[in-house]
C-alpha cells in the first residue's frame, strides 16, 4: 500500500468530514442553544442545493450562484424559524420530532413541485480536472475547493463564536439558557440569527456537494443521520466538538470503505470483502458513538460545563 493511496484517502476523509461539519455545526447550535431537535435541517441542505442550481443557471457563474444561494437559504431558514419552529421550543422533544418530520415531507413535495425531482448543477469547467499536489499525487481540483471552503468556514466560525459579542451570547445560551435570559439577552432574536447561520451553512454544503453527488429530492435525509451522530460524538452545542466529531466520522467512514475490503480481501471472496467494508465502516461509526455515550455521556467536548 503506497503513501499516495493513503494520502489520497486521507484527503477524501477530510473532504467528507468537513462537509459533515458544515451540517453538524448548524444542528449542534440549534440543538444546544434552543434545546430543539430539528429533523428538517437536512431539508435546508436540499433547499440550498436546489436554490444554488437555479441561481447558477440564472447568473451563469458558479461562484455567484453559490454565494447568492447562501443568504437566500439563510433567509428561508429564518422565515421558517419565525413562522413555524418558534412555536415548538416550549414543546417536548417528541412533538418537535413529529413536527419537523412533517416539515421534511412537506418541503420534499414543495421542492418537487417547484423544481421537479432533480436539478442540474455542474462544477465549474476550470475545476473539473485533477491537480498534481506533489509529484505522483493527483487529486480532483473540485474536491480541493471543498476542503479549502470547509476549512475557511471552520476558521470563520471559530472566530465568530470565540472572539465576537454574538459568539459570546451564543456560548452563554448554549451553556445555560435560563441564566443568559436572566442577564437580559434577547434570546428570541439570537435564536433567529443562529437558525439563519445554520441554514447558511447547510446551503454551503448543499451547493458544494451538489455537483459531486446529485441535486435531488430527499438528498438531505441520509446525511442528516450522520450529522446527528457527529454532534452526539462531539458534544451537543459545542462547535469544537462538531468539527472533531465530523472529521472523526469522515475519516472512519472512508477508511472503512477503502481499507477494510483490502484487509478482508486477503481471506474472503471479493463480494463478501467489499460488502463487509462499508457495512463494518458504518457500524464502526455507531460503535464509536455508543462507546463515547457510555464513557462520556456529554460527548467529547460538552458545551455545558
Amino acid at each position, binding site marked *: 500500500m503506497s503513501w499516495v*493511496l493513503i494520502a489520497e484517502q486521507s484527503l477524501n476523509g477530510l473532504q467528507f468530514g468537513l462537509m459533515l461539519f458544515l451540517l453538524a455545526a448548524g444542528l449542534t447550535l440549534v440543538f444546544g442553544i434552543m434545546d430543539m431537535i430539528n429533523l428538517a435541517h437536512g431539508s435546508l441542505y436540499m433547499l440550498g442545493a436546489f436554490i444554488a442550481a437555479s441561481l447558477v443557471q440564472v447568473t451563469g457563474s458558479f461562484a455567484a450562484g453559490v454565494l447568492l444561494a447562501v443568504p437566500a437559504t439563510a433567509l428561508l431558514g429564518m422565515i421558517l424559524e419565525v413562522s413555524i419552529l418558534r412555536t415548538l421550543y416550549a414543546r417536548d422533544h417528541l412533538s418537535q420530532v413529529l413536527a419537523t418530520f412533517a416539515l421534511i415531507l412537506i418541503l420534499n413535495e414543495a421542492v418537487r413541485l417547484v423544481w421537479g425531482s432533480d436539478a442540474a448543477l455542474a462544477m465549474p469547467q476550470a475545476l*473539473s480536472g485533477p491537480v498534481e499536489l506533489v509529484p505522483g499525487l493527483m487529486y480532483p481540483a*473540485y474536491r480541493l475547493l471543498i476542503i479549502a471552503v470547509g476549512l475557511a468556514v471552520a476558521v470563520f466560525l471559530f472566530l465568530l463564536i470565540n472572539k465576537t459579542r454574538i459568539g459570546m451570547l451564543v456560548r452563554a445560551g448554549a451553556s445555560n439558557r435560563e441564566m443568559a435570559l436572566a442577564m437580559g439577552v434577547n434570546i428570541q432574536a439570537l435564536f433567529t440569527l443562529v437558525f439563519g447561520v445554520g441554514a447558511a451553512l447547510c446551503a454551503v454544503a448543499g451547493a458544494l456537494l451538489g455537483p459531486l453527488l*446529485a441535486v435531488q429530492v430527499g438528498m438531505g435525509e441520509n446525511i442528516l443521520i450522520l450529522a446527528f451522530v457527529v454532534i452526539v460524538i462531539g458534544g451537543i452545542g459545542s462547535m469544537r466538538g462538531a468539527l472533531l466529531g465530523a472529521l472523526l466520522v469522515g475519516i472512519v467512514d472512508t477508511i472503512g470503505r*477503502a481499507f477494510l475490503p483490502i484487509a478482508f480481501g486477503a481471506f474472503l471472496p*471479493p463480494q463478501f470483502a467489499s460488502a463487509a467494508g462499508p457495512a463494518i465502516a458504518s457500524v464502526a461509526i455507531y460503535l464509536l458513538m455508543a462507546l463515547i455515550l457510555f464513557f462520556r455521556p456529554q460527548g467529547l467536548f460538552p458545551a455545558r460545563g
Partner: protein
Amino acid sequence: MRTLLVAAALSLGAAAGPGVQAADKVKIGFVSTLSGPSAALGIDIRDAFQLAVKMNGGKLGGLPAEVLVGDDQFKPEVGRQLAEKYVKLDKVDFLTGFVFSNIMLASVPVAFENKTIYVSPNAAPSPLAGKQCNPYFFVASWPNDAYHEAAGQHATNKGYKSVYLIAPNYQAGKDSLAGFKRFYKGSIANEVYTQLGQLDYSAELAQARAAKPDALYIFLPGGMGINFIKQFVAAGLSKDIQLITPGFSSDQDIIRPVGDALLGTIDTAHWALDLDNATNRKFVAAFEKEYQRLPSLFAAQGYDTALLIDAAVRGAKGKVENVETVRKALRDAKFESSHGPFKLNRNQYPIQNYYLRVVARDSQGRLVNKTLGTIFKDHGDAYVQDCPMK
C-alpha cells in the same frame, strides 16, 4: 368491483363469440415508466414505437393499430394493474413497453396466464432465457448479459492484462460481472461491489488509481453511472485507464447530463446511430425530425419492437385473435431491424451482432457513439440450452 368488471368483460367477450375471422384492427397495450427520474428510457421507447406506427400509416402488419399507453410510475404494483387492465379488459393482442425487469417480472405473468403475447422492448432477464423460457415471451432487444459479454470479449481482443471491475452489490451487479468474466481471459485487478445507490466514489477511485489496471469496466446503471463517470474524469483517471461501459451507460440519454466527460469512453451495444443499413438511416432521420433529439439505443429497441409486431401480424395474415398463428409468425418473423436482419433463437431471444463503439463528436460537433467494429457475429446467449422449448 374489479371482479364485477372482469365478469362483465368476460361475458361481453363470450357474447362476441369465438367466430374466427381476420380482425379489423390490432390492439397493443404499452406499459412503461413514463414519469419520475428514470422516465427518459421509457419515453424514448414509447416515442420510437409510435413513430414506427406513424411511419407505417397508422398500421401494423396491414391492420390499423390501436396503441394504449400507460405509465407504471416505476412501481411494480402499478405496472401489474395496468397489464391486468389491458390484458383482461381491453383484450389487447400484444403487451409491450416495460423498461425495468423488476416491474416487468411482476406484470408479465398476467399476460402469460391469459395467453397474451409479451414483446419486450428492453428487459430480457437470464431466467426467462433458460429454464423458465415462456412461449408467450419474445425479446426485441438483447439478452441481459450480452453487452457485458461483448465488453469482456473486447478486453480479451485488446489484450488487456488487467481489468478493474465495479458493480453494485446486488444480483444484477454480480450477473453482469459474471457475463464480463465469461469472455475475458486476462486477469482481474480487483472486483469491487459498492452499495446500491452510492453517489460518491472517491474511495473506490483512489483504489482503482493505485491498482493501475489497463481498463476499468463498470456496471452502474442510472444516476450511479452518471456520478461515477463525472468523478472518474475529475480525478484524472481517464488519462491512464480506459473506461469501458455497457452501451446503456454512455448512450444518448447519459450523454445529455454528463457531456464532454464521456469523450473517448468505449462501450458495447447491438445498435449504433451510424450503423449503415436502410432501416436505421430511415429511423434515425425520422426520429430526429419528429422529436428534435437523437435517438438512444432504447429508442431503437422500441422501433424494432413495432417492426417485429408488424412482421408477425403480416405473417399471421391479420389473424391476430389466433395466438398460436401469431406465435409461429413471430418465431419466423423476417424483417430488417434497426441493426440489420432480425432473427430469434429457440428461446425467443435475439441472435444478433454486437458492436464496439466510442463516444466522439460527429460532423456537427455533437457527442454521439461511433461504431468502431464488430465484436460478436450472430451471438445468442449462454442460457438457451436450459430452455425446454423447441
